[in-house]
Each structure stands twice: as C-alpha cells, then as structure tokens.
C-alpha cells in the first residue's frame, strides 16, 4: 500500500500527537500542506496551542518523518491499511458528519468502503426470533448494501454472520484491530477480516472502554445511509446509534416488538417517535428504490403446514400447546417443529417455546 507524504503526515498526526481531534484539525489547517507537519511541527504547534504546546508531542530518537515511515511499515506488516480524509476512498457520508475521524484503520477488503452501506444493529440480549430475523435480514440486505454493524454478541453478531454469506459486511470495532472483544468472537473476527472489512479508529493494542463504544456508534451511523435497530432495551447502545443517525440525517428503521418485552422497549419507542417499522427486507429496500427477490417457497408436509399455521396465528407458543392446537401428539409436534426450524421457518426461543419467523 502506498501512502502519499500528506497521508503519512495525517497518520503520524493521529497516532503520535496526543491531543483531541479538534486540535488536530486546527493543526492541519495551520499547516496548509499537511506534509509540513512532519518538518515544522514545533512551530505550527506553538502557533495553534497556546499552553503546553510541547506536551502534545515528545520527540524520541526518530524524527517525525521517520516515525511516520515506521507507522506505515507497521501497518504493512500487520496486513492493515489506513484511511484518512485525504484518501480517495474516504467515505463521503463519513466526511459529512460533524466529527469525522481523522484516521481509520482497516483490515480486509478495502473495496467495501466504496459500496452503498446500511447499518444493522441489535442489543446483546434479544429474543430468539429477533436474533434469527436479524441474521436473515442482514443476509438479504447484503445483496444490495454493505452491511455495517458492531462486533458485540447477540444482534451485531447475527447481522455480521448473516451478511458474511454474501461477503458484504463491515464491522466497526470499539478497540484496536488486534484486540478481540468479546474474546469469544475470535473466529468471527477472522472470517470478517478474510471475507469482509474490519474498521477501527483506535491504534493497535487499544482496548475498548465505555467511551469508545459511544464514539464507535457515531461511525456506524455516519458510514451508512440508514440504520435498522432489530432489538433494543430502554438503555441499549443501539439507541445511541439510532440517535446519531437522526442527528446526521440518516433513515432509522426498527423491528416492532411485543409490548411488555423489555428487550424490545427501545425499538417500540423508536417507532413511536417516527422510525419506519420493518417486518421484511423489502420495507427497507423500497425506501431506497430497490426491488428485492422473492424468497423461494419451501416444500412442507401437511403436518408441518398445520403447525406453522398455528404458530403464525398465535405467536410464541409452547410445544405442548402447538401440539394440542394442531391435533398432534407432543412428540409429533416436536418433530415437525424441529423440521421447520431446519427450514428456517420457526425459531426456538427457550423453555420449549417456538415462534414463526
């Protein structure tokens, strides 16, 4: 990967100068040509920062230019790349937000940055049907969009796994690219790096902290044309993403949840305050003028049809009640439900309860 001198200057500024993004932007403006930062940093710095100008950067044995060189070499060595506002493929949607990141680390397929992007997020704990629907929805959306999501358990994971089937997924991490949080997602991280794209604005080795999730959520919203919240409690992080999306003028979509379900309160609130209600992928695709394909119908036995009809009519039901309503023995109903689960038409939600998808 080749970086221009200007890009190297921005990478160096982000990685080595310990200050906030606003000050960095001021430094860039003062420099005129970013490349000047590498050679005239002390002077520019003194002009911009009144107090403690020499605290933001403590030079080591290497000069800033040499340090910039070392930074790009390290990126190369780790198989990563850096995206700065100077790069050709810096997402325009991200540049439009009020606090765009000066530097994004990336690992995987860089071409995904140029695609249309849509964000799918869900809280870590969500009803089984919502988890399954998140995966299916992400899979369908990923035929037309790069699906952008976080990296947490539950909703994010389901979305990433669904979109991975079309190799069209971008995960934005709240920590350095070499850190895996949660640790159980090590294999998911590998797959996304191989078949999708991992993004992060944090340097290698930086760990996730409370504030990094907030900052990351602004990127999720900023990168995309719209955000779908599949499940959110009353204080879920997914709601922060939705709030950012509204702030940036993006569309917000949400799954409707059964009233009284704690894991869906946030979604219902979003819908009440104007988010678009989504029950199938076409609801989202239509908003962007895309016509999706019909899902192929699966052949079912008469018994399975009966069981499915019962579940479609009554929502989440216990196996025994399904059996009674469909006029089957419990073990016959269990077999039919298991078959329907394999065909992706129902989902088991704990306590021997099933619901139709």
């Amino acid at each position: 990967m080749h970086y221009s001198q200007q890009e190297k200057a921005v990478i160096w500024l982000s990685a080595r100068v310990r200050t906030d993004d606003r000050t960095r932007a001021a430094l860039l403006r003062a420099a005129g040509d970013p490349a000047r930062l590498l050679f005239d940093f002390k002077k520019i710095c003194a002009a911009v920062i009144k107090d403690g100008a020499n605290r933001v950067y403590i030079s080591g044995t290497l000069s800033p230019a040499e340090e910039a060189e070392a930074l790009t070499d390290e990126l190369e060595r780790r198989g990563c790349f850096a995206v700065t506002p100077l790069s050709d493929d810096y997402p325009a949607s991200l540049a439009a937000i009020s606090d765009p990141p000066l530097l994004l680390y990336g690992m995987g397929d860089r071409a995904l940055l140029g695609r249309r992007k849509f964000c799918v997020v869900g809280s870590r704990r969500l009803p089984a049907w919502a988890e399954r629907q998140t995966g299916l929805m992400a899979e369908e959306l990923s035929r037309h969009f790069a699906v952008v999501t976080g990296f947490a358990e539950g909703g994010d994971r389901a979305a990433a796994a669904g979109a991975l089937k079309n190799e069209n997924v971008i995960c934005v991490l709240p920590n350095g690219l070499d850190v895996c949080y949660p640790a159980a997602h090590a294999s998911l991280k590998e797959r996304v790096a191989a078949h999708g794209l991992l993004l992060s604005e944090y340097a290698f080795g930086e760990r996730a902290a409370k504030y990094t999730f907030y900052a990351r959520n602004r990127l999720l919203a900023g990168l995309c044309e719209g955000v779908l919240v599949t499940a959110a409690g009353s204080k879920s992080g997914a709601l922060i993403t939705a709030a950012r999306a509204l702030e940036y003028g993006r569309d917000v979509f949400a799954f409707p949840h059964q009233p009284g379900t704690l894991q869906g309160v946030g979604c219902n609130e979003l819908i009440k305050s104007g988010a678009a209600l989504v029950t199938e992928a076409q609801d989202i695709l239509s908003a962007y003028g895309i016509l999706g394909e019909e899902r192929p119908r699966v052949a079912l036995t008469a018994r399975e049809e009966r069981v499915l009809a019962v579940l479609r009519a009554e929502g989440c039901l216990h196996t025994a009640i399904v059996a009674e309503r469909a006029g089957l023995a419990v073990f016959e109903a269990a077999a039919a439900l298991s078959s329907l689960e394999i065909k992706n038409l129902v989902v088991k939600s704990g306590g021997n309860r099933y619901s139709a998808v």
Partner: protein
Amino acid sequence: MIAKIVCYALNGLEGVPVEVETDINKGMPSYEMVGLPDAAVKEARERVRSALKNSRFLFPVGRITINFAPADLRKEGAAFDLAVAVSLLKASEQLVGADVSDTVFLGELALNGDLRPVAGLLPLLISAKGHGFTKFIVPAANAKEARFLGGAHIFPTRTLREVVGHLTGAAPIAPLGTAAFVPHASSKNTADLMFVKGQPVARRALEVAVAGGHNLLLVGPPGTGKTMLARCIPSVMPDLTFEEALEITKIHSVAGVLGEEGIVTERPFRTPHHTATTVSMCGGGNRTVHPGEMSLAHGGVLFLDELPEYNRSTLEAMRQPLEDGRITVSRAGGTVTFPARFMLCASMNPCPCGNYGSTERTCTCTPAEIRRYRKKISGPLLDRIDLQVEVDNVSYDALASSARQESSAAVKERVNVARTIQSARFEGCGIHTNAEMGERELAHFCGLNAEGNAILRSAFERMKLSARARGRIIKVARTIADLAASEEILPEHVFEAVSYRMYDKFD
C-alpha cells in the same frame, strides 16, 4: 495339634480363601498373629479371648501362633473373628469329633460371644461357592442377604456357643431356605410419573432415554420439577433380573449400604451431592478399595443435580466409565475393577440466574456469563449425553389435556417393548441397548435412507450442530423408531432426535 479353618477375605468384589491355622506349643504363654493381618484383624486377639471366656470355653495356655495363609495377601476387617475362635477351640481340643475342613466361617465376635454381621457377605459366599465350598456358618444378622445364594447349606448362628453346638452335633441348626427373588419386593422409591404435572416434552425425552439406555440432561429454571422427573426414571426402567440384582447386591454389600431386605430388588437411584470428591464418585480407600457412587449406581440411575456445580475433575472422571461400563481403581491396597454401567441423568439451570428462556421472570445474566456457565460442562462429557432437553415452567391451565397424566406403569410397558426389540437386534453383539452401539453397529443397524441423510445434512448446516452430534442423533432416532415399532428410521424420527440436541449448537 494344628487346626486349619477356612475363611474368606474380600478383594474388590471377589472373595479370596484364607486359611486360619492355629498351633499351640508348650512354653512361655504367648499369643501371636502372623500372615499380614491389619489392625482390625490383630484386634481379634482380644475379642476372641473375651468371647471364649464369656461363652464358657477355656482360653488355652501356651505359645499360641495363629497364621493367616496365603501370607502375602493383606487381611482386613473383623470377618476373621469367628474363624480364629473356632481354630483356637479346635487346636485346644475343645471341638472333638467335629469336622470343620469343608466349612467356611464368617463373622465378627462381640466380647460376650455374640456374632455380629459382616459387610460384603454375599460376594464372599458367591466366590466361595464357586471354589466348591457348600457349608457356611454366617452371623444370623446376615441371613437375609445369604438366603439368596442357592445350592448351599448356610447356617445362621447368633452366638459362638451355637456354632460349637452345631459343629459337635449337640444342637444342630437348620440350614437357611433359599429365597426366591421378587423384583420391587421392598419399594422405597414412591415416585411415579402420574404425579408429575405437565412436562410433556421432558416426559417424552425421559421415555426415549430409558428405552434406549441413553443418558439424559434436563435443563430448566429452578423449581420446574427436574428432580421430580429424575426420581421417576427407576420406575419406568425394566425390572431387575436375578443376575442383575445379585451383581448390584454384591457392590452394595461390599460398600456396606445394603438395606434390611438383604438383596437389592429395585434399580438404584444415587444422588451424590455436588461437593462429592472424585474418589467418592470413582471408588477408593486407604488400603481396601471401596466402590464409589458410579458403581453403586450400577444397573440404575446416577442423578447429578446442578451439574455445573460439580468439581470439573470429578465430572471428567466419569467419561471413561460412561463408555466402558466399569471402572478400574488402583490403590496401595491393590487394583480392583468395579462394574459401573449406569444411566446418567443430570440437571442444570440454563444460566447462572436460572431464568433464561422463562416467560415470567427476566434473565439478568450477560451472554458472557451464560457462556461461561455452560462451558463448565466439557464437550467430551456432553458428547456422552444423548438427550438434552428443556424442562419448562409453562402453566398448563391453557391445556385441556393436562388432566390426563400417564402413570409410570404405562410408560414402562412401552419401554419394555422397545427393549425387547433391541435385545433381539443385538443378539450376539455383546450389547443390549441402542446407546451402547459403536460405529460398526451404527453402520449395520442404523442405515439412513437418502431422505434421512439429506435431513441430517441440512440440520447440520442450519442448526450449526457439532460433528460429534451425528452419531448421537442417529442412535436416538433408532430408539424413537423402536418405540414406534418401526423397522426403518423415518424422517420424523430423525427430526425428533434433532430436537433433543439443544446444547450441541456452536456459539
């Protein structure tokens, strides 16, 4: 004069003949025991001396040497007391005319000459009978246990005087009659499926598990009746045969937990607490090796309540016995193999707070906590549990059929039919149930048709089942087909089997 009396020592579940030789010489009075006796055997000296005196016999004066042969076998316990006393009497010529050469003497003596019962009597009798002995003198308190040994003359005695009276012919004792074995003669387990409310899914899983000899994991929130269900398992298992009962009785007798009735008539139901140590589960002991919980559950059910709370190494120790049906324990006292073919039934909560999947209460656990909790059960152990089923807490008011609850007897009938089919199928294979099938039997008896294979393949893809689940699913499907009296494994059987694999999904 040298007296030779035969007694038996226990080595694991086997009896080993021990000859008690007594010689009385002239010289300074002394009383020595040689031949590797342990402390309890050496203490026989004082017990026998008092017992003789208080039974109005003479304690001989002279140099007394008592030898236990073979000399290289360590002798344990108090079962030698009677043999020592009789050999002393014989050597001091107080038993003139009595033939004691083909009689086995077993019993512990009290100071007043009463005979006390010994642990592990039945295995000793069975071994001795195998060695050709047919006359036994045993404590009357052990009579119930001894009655089940047919084809031998067993004389129950209460005191040392009675023994001598019998031997000299002054007051012969009538031999014990042989008792017929009656299953469930003494029913302690009153659990019955009739009293289990609801739980249709778990009931069915329990029936399948027992029918095929599969292990069972019950997962559910606290207070949903997991323990209640587990207690019903023995009530639907096939009745014990006499051979099985004898084998179980041997183990229980050695462990000293045999009840009043003298023989085990019901399948054992063992519930070790989750603080149980590895040794208490596997068996062990300082010098003598005692059977552990796994062996005590032989032929019955080992129920582990709150499975994740058990010590990990304790659980891992069960892996090999679960495969082989026996456990070999090596200790300083020797190496012993105990049978340990039991049905494992375990229960656990779905998550640390217990409310995961509940409709009424909210689960407060994070996904990481739930994962950590489930990870306490290792994959290889889970691999050996064919059925994993959720026990739910639904209120059955919504169900019209909730009034009808099947009794254990009805379920047991179906189980017996399925077991008969399996016995016929595995004739000559050395196994009896579907759960014991190896790769060879799986290929031979459980061929799936193209449709069945296609189902399994899609199940693996869609439900993300682990590779090791395959064989398990087929075995359970075979049992379900047996319950339906179907020669072939049909798709619906495979589907039902798949529905019992809730923990095989990869995260």
